[in-house]
């Protein structure tokens, strides 16, 4: 079991409020990703759940029990750190088994569990090596091994893949997701990478300035962003925002259209007219950055190859069903 509930959790360092009251319900077995720009408080929130920082207010319930005064080790959680935080003087076996040794399990049982965890993570040949003799990806797996061997109520991941190169990151992303599904253990995963968030999460928590902006499944966030911040943060390339006349016509202060929901026409009369400033041809996609005069720069995405180049005039027609409307304070208008 690993159900985690936050009720009005606050954290301040002196006069600085890092977390301004967070309420959250994380269901047992789900994979929840905290995402947001740097300094939004996502890592702090994770550390509060872990117990590495004390809350300034509110409650953290794990399986219904308030743990704010419980030390980290007694919360039944395990954590994977961004820097891996392996014990440099211990072998892989020692690293993975350290938590079990601290609980006081007999040596035979520790060995059995460590070997099982190592087998799951393809670490068996490296059990007697020291961390410095491993590659980045292997170290990362040792850190994950250390987390799973204790059979915790939940895993906490603090940007675990950000030190890996791009190719390895994609591979580990899949491995972590698969492992979590296989074990069925609740996971909270912190990242600033919205692609990681979209691909790994059952549910995403978007944080900004210490506040939860929206909590929902990846597609909910993509299709129905609650406000301008979420709309701009989720999705790549970023959503286009247009203010002024076109927005007023829709009864909104700002309207947003994703690049993939703009139809590109070479010489149409309707839609938003502009000149291509930069055209990116990726083969699978074509991205156009269009200078649309008073509307500013707009991004359009075409699936497949489109032979348009910088300097060409185009008109962009938004898909009427896919226009997001926002009021003056940036909140989404529904209906």
């Amino acid at each position, binding site marked *: 079991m690993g159900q985690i509930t936050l009720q009005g959790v606050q954290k301040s360092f002196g006069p600085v409020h890092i977390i301004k009251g967070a309420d959250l319900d994380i269901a047992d077995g789900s994979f929840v990703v905290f995402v947001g720009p740097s300094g939004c408080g996502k890592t702090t929130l994770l550390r509060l759940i872990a117990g*590495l920082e004390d809350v300034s207010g509110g409650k953290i319930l794990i399986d219904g029990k308030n743990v704010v005064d419980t030390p*980290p*080790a007694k919360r039944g959680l*395990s954590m994977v750190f961004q820097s891996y*935080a392996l014990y440099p*003087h211990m072998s892989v076996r020692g690293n993975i088994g*350290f938590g079990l040794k601290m*609980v006081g399990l007999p040596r035979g049982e520790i060995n059995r569990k460590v070997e099982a965890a190592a087998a799951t993570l393809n670490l068996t040949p490296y059990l007697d090596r020291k961390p410095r003799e491993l590659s980045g990806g292997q170290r990362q797996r040792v850190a994950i091994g250390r987390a799973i061997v*204790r059979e915790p109520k939940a895993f906490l991941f603090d940007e675990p893949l950000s030190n890996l190169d791009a190719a390895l990151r994609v591979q580990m992303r899949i491995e972590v997701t698969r492992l979590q599904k296989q074990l069925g253990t609740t996971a909270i995963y912190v990242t600033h990478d919205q692609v990681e968030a979209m691909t790994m999460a059952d549910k995403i928590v978007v944080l900004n300035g210490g506040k939860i902006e929206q909590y929902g499944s990846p597609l909910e966030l993509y299709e129905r962003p609650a406000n301008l911040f979420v709309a701009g943060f989720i999705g790549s390339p970023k959503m286009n925002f247009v203010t002024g006349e076109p927005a007023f016509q829709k009864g909104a202060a700002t309207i947003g259209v994703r690049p993939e929901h703009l139809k590109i026409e070479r010489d149409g009369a309707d839609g938003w007219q502009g000149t291509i400033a930069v055209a990116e041809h990726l083969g699978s996609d074509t991205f156009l950055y269009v200078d649309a005069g008073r509307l500013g720069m707009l991004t359009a995405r075409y699936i497949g190859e489109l032979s348009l180049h910088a300097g060409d005039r185009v008109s962009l027609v938004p898909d009427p069903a896919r226009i997001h409307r926002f009021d003056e304070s940036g909140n989404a208008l529904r209906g």
Partner: protein
Amino acid sequence: MARMATTRRVAISTATAWLFGFLIFFPILWMGLASFKTELEAFAVPPSFLFFHWTTENYATVQERSDYLHHAINSIIIAGGSTLIALLIAIPAAWSMAFSPTKRTKDILLWMLSTKMMPPVGVLVPIYLIYKSFGLLDSRIGLVFILCLGNLPIVIWMLFTYFKEIPRDILEAARMDGATIGRELVYVLTPMAIPGLASTLLLNLILAWNEAFWTLNLSTSSAAPLTTFIASYSSPEGLFWAKLSAASTLAIAPILVLGWFSQKQLVRGLTFGAVK
């Protein structure tokens, strides 16, 4: 062509390094050689480098005239004792400054270091008077105490910079793994800090062994370490170069051997934090 240039450059820099190494080492070599000369040859002009009458009579005279062992034991007690006490105080101090710093930590560190900038002679008279009234003159405890205090800022600084390099994450990982503070210390912190502790200990030992200002001024005979032993050959009956050299060679021999065997640790300790 490029390779040849590099080989030549390596050869030149190696030769230069050896030259400078030799220049720095030369006084010690000269002292060692002089200790095997007769008094007459020791200050002969022009000096003979290797072709002189080798003799060990200086060592015999030195041992006869003063008790080398007595002074050596004093040196060991004073250097060792002051180092151990300094470490006992410095470890928790550096620990708390590295792992739970406050707003004033930086100021305290700087203030401690600033005390090393004052020439010790500036406080000689008050210290001497205090020692006199407490009966600490010419006592080992007194010397242990003053050397410990004198080196404490450096010891704390060294340990502080060393501890700072230990990533917090690892300590937090240990806490998540269920280690209590005691077990965290035994299983995680100490093994990681041992190289730093070792090099700090060695450097402080050498500093305390070679310290001459306080030991010369605050001791005369019963607590006198090897520095006083050397100094006794330089004054009353004029300079005896050969005997002075023999005494000095004897005095630096133990620390030279220690330094030789631990040079790797020492270099690491001295340059730690400077290069990553």
